[in-house]
């Protein structure tokens, strides 16, 4: 009846996961009780859970990502402390638990932390920057988000019910085959990643279509902000490579569930094919994360330097170059697997070449700052920290791209230091910069920069104190994923690294404090202008937060940096253009189908993990039925009345006129 599920699935004997999950459940229960007592359910259901508004979905993606980043960071704390405590001893985490921790850390950080944040940013920003009212397929957007969220839930359930994979964040066979991993850990991984992968693919298709087909009037390709270009490139990579992941994991699933021989080491299976396929996804995945990060910096540098982006067109070319070339470098993840000189040389060269595109971008950002009036606001701090950190991470990457050098450093702590250097240095820094930068647009008030500045410095210093020793340890010969360490001479570096984590914890606390304090002081920090940073692209032409229809009248773009030109003209002529002739607007109707589908996907995933076949079938049928019912509806859109549109836009115009007047007074004053 319940398949493999029983009371023994709960890790009674392991206090750490048990206490953690009890604490998490208590917190969750508390939140649910609070929501119920306060009577917030109808509001949440109506405005958030069933919402198909790209801004709401973007915010929910980011929220999910931030929570998962903290979860993944907790794993990181455990790993660093275990390695510091387990020098010549067993430490406090037994091997089978430690292996789950590092597998969960990688999986969660990449797929459930960074990915939702990047997708959330793209969802929120791209339609606003392109001057449109929503993405191409709003309801599917909601489905995509909820699938990702339910997959994240599935990963976290593994903490309390059963176990997680002990195979690393990419479950290499034959270790991940049933013969060597008979438990449910790998199954949790497979189904969670599979479900979130479908969600990601949906978002990818959505953004590609939005960018290529829905730009507002006048927004030709070469007038798009660079963030939209990078979002396009990143989503093209999603569309091109997530199916590879889906296929690879489906093959492993077939091996595990019905005894096929794709990757087994018996009967003609080929474990190395898994490594080949999974990295054909895995390497582009890195660029899926980092390209939007580059886009974020390409927005922040011009804004806070008061200058247009240097070399816009070279930036676009570099983005597309990286997009294509990133699909031809995957073998550098397994140079040591034995492909031989010809293959290794090809992929070594292509891996080095891809750094050229990135180099172009770095110079462009530096030249954007040159001669500008640089304002050292928090987003700019993260961006400048990024340039410093990322250059070093990139250079160690070029080093690893040389096969002979890679033979020495493969699977060492040097590699660990390298990819944290690029992923934290670029993606995580970009995420915090972007959250600070677009927070006022999403919520209508700025974050208090003081704690943000503290968070940046803690993170920046903490990062280097944590990871610089790992470079040294790697060169000294320490391999990755060690549960205990037998070389006392490594101890000092491991202690330094653990101390770095303490600094990083301070950074996380500062970031949380910044958020909490800003929310409490939101009235002083209110952004009434809609343009708190003196921005240059279209999202700053809307009020903060934007109305659900984004633009009362569709913009008509006449050049690059769409909003900057409009703003200059308004200041020059001391007036806004005449009030337009408002029209009613058609907006997509909200729908619970995303939540519904995701709920049954979760049930399906859980049932498959525990071999509860009847429940899996029920869930599949229910999900299909839900889709048919949804497809049967007649009304897809509702009309926003002229009055409502006019009211929203007139309020916006008043705010803008007030600024114009203030600027005029400042000009007049001596």
């Amino acid at each position, binding site marked *: 009846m319940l398949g493999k599920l029983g009371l023994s699935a709960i890790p009674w004997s392991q206090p750490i996961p048990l206490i953690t999950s009890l604490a998490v459940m208590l917190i969750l229960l508390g939140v649910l009780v609070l929501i119920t007592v306060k009577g917030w359910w109808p509001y949440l259901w109506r405005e958030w859970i069933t919402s198909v508004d790209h801004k709401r979905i973007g915010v929910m993606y980011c929220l999910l990502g931030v929570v998962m980043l903290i979860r993944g960071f907790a794993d990181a704390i455990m790993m660093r402390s275990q390695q510091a405590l387990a020098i010549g001893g067993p430490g406090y985490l037994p091997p089978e638990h430690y292996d789950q921790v590092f597998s969960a850390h990688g999986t969660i950080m990449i797929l459930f932390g960074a990915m939702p944040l990047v997708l959330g940013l793209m969802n929120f920003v791209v339609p606003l920057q392109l001057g449109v009212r929503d993405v191409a397929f709003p309801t599917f957007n909601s489905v995509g988000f909820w699938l990702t969220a339910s997959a994240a839930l599935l990963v976290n359930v593994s903490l309390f019910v059963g176990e997680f994979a002990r195979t690393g964040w990419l479950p290499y066979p034959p270790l991940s085959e049933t013969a060597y991993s008979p438990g449910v850990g790998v199954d949790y991984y497979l189904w969670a990643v599979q479900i979130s992968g479908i969600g990601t693919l949906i978002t990818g298709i959505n953004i590609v279509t939005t960018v290529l087909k829905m730009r507002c009037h006048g927004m030709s390709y070469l007038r798009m902000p660079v963030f939209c270009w990078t979002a396009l490139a990143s989503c093209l990579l999603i569309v091109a490579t997530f199916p590879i992941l889906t296929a690879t994991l489906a093959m492993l699933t077939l091996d595990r569930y019905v005894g096929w021989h794709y990757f087994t080491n018996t009967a*003609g299976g080929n474990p190395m094919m898994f490594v080949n396929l999974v990295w054909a996804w895995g390497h582009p995945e890195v660029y899926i994360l980092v390209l939007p990060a580059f886009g974020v910096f390409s927005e922040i540098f011009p804004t806070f330097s008061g200058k247009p982006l240097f070399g816009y067109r070279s930036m676009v070319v570099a983005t597309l170059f990286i997009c294509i070339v990133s699909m031809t470098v995957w073998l550098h993840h397994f140079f040591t697997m034995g492909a031989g000189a010809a293959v290794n040389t090809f992929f070594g060269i292509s891996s080095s070449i891809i750094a050229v595109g990135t180099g172009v971008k770095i110079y462009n950002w530096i030249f954007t700052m040159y001669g500008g009036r640089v304002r050292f606001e928090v987003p700019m701090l993260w961006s400048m920290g990024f340039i410093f950190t990322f250059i070093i991470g990139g250079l160690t990457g070029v080093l690893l791209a040389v096969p002979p050098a890679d033979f020495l450093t493969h699977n060492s702590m040097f590699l660990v230091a390298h990819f944290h250097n690029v992923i934290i240095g670029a993606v995580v820094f970009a995420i915090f910069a972007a959250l600070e930068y677009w927070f006022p647009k999403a919520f209508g008030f700025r974050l208090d920069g003081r704690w943000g500045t503290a968070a940046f410095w803690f993170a920046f210093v903490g990062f280097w104190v944590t990871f610089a020793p790992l470079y040294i340890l790697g060169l000294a010969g320490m391999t990755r994923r060690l549960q205990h360490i037998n070389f006392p001479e490594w101890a000092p570096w491991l202690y330094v690294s653990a101390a770095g984590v303490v600094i990083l914890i301070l950074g996380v606390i500062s970031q949380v404090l910044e958020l909490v304090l800003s929310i409490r002081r939101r009235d002083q920090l209110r952004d009434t202008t809609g343009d708190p940073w003196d921005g240059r692209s279209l999202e700053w032409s809307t009020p903060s937060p934007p109305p659900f229809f984004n633009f009362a009248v569709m913009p008509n773009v006449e050049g690059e940096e769409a909003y900057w030109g409009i703003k200059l003209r308004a200041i020059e002529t001391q007036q806004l253009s005449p009030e337009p002739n408002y029209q009613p607007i058609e907006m997509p109707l909200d729908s619970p189908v995303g939540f519904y589908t995701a709920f049954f996907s979760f049930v399906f995933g859980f049932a498959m993990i525990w071999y509860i076949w009847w429940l899996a079938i029920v869930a599949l049928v229910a999900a299909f039925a839900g889709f048919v019912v949804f497809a049967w509806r007649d009304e897809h859109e509702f009309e926003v009345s002229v009055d409502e549109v006019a009211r929203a836009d007139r309020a916006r115009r008043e705010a803008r006129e007030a600024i114009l007047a203030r600027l005029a007074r400042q000009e007049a004053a001596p």
Partner: protein
Amino acid sequence: MTDTGLPASVAALRRVREDPHRLGHRPHDGREPVRGIGMGTTGPAHKRIIVGYGFWIFLLSDIVMFSCFFAAFAVQRDATAGGPKMADIVDLQRVAIETAALLLSSYTCMLSFAATNVRNLLLTQVFLFLTGLLGLVFVLLEAWEFIDLANRGITPQRSGMLTAFFGLVGLHGVHVTAGGLWLATMMAQVQVKGFRRHIVHRLICFNLFWHALDIVWIGIFTVVYLIGSLS
């Protein structure tokens, strides 16, 4: 302003002077840009184009997924682990019938789309039904093939080659089955709701899906069955 009457070289020279790197902002041939397809500066595309294009992107991703299974088959082709070889399990006659059924179903699917374009409900439904029927024939033949092989002890558990074979062909079969479910749903929707705009959009998507499955089948019958039967 048109360039008619000018020698081509003069027109080309003028174009270069106006936009030296031909980087856009203006169509190259001087014609009015087409509205409603989302190109250039003409604003958002029409819903029909958006839906079709989004589905086209999805299909490409689906084909990438198939390509992984093709790659796995190519890599594991000789991994027979002492079991049957490809040439031992191919039944060309059945494959020929399957191919004919799927090709004809693509044809009737196209005809149903032609009927949709003139808003002819009866013919749309008839051709959709024929499409589904031919798809059913295909799926049944494939199921028969798999059962037949299983009865001879040829299962995916036997060897890496057979795993890759069943995986690739089975994945296509699953797609056709899912397409059949979708087709049944579409027929019901067309019958009840008629040719509303979003129903027609879905028919466009279904049409694309069904043709794409046929394209994948071309790859399968060539690489798996025909080339497989050679050795």
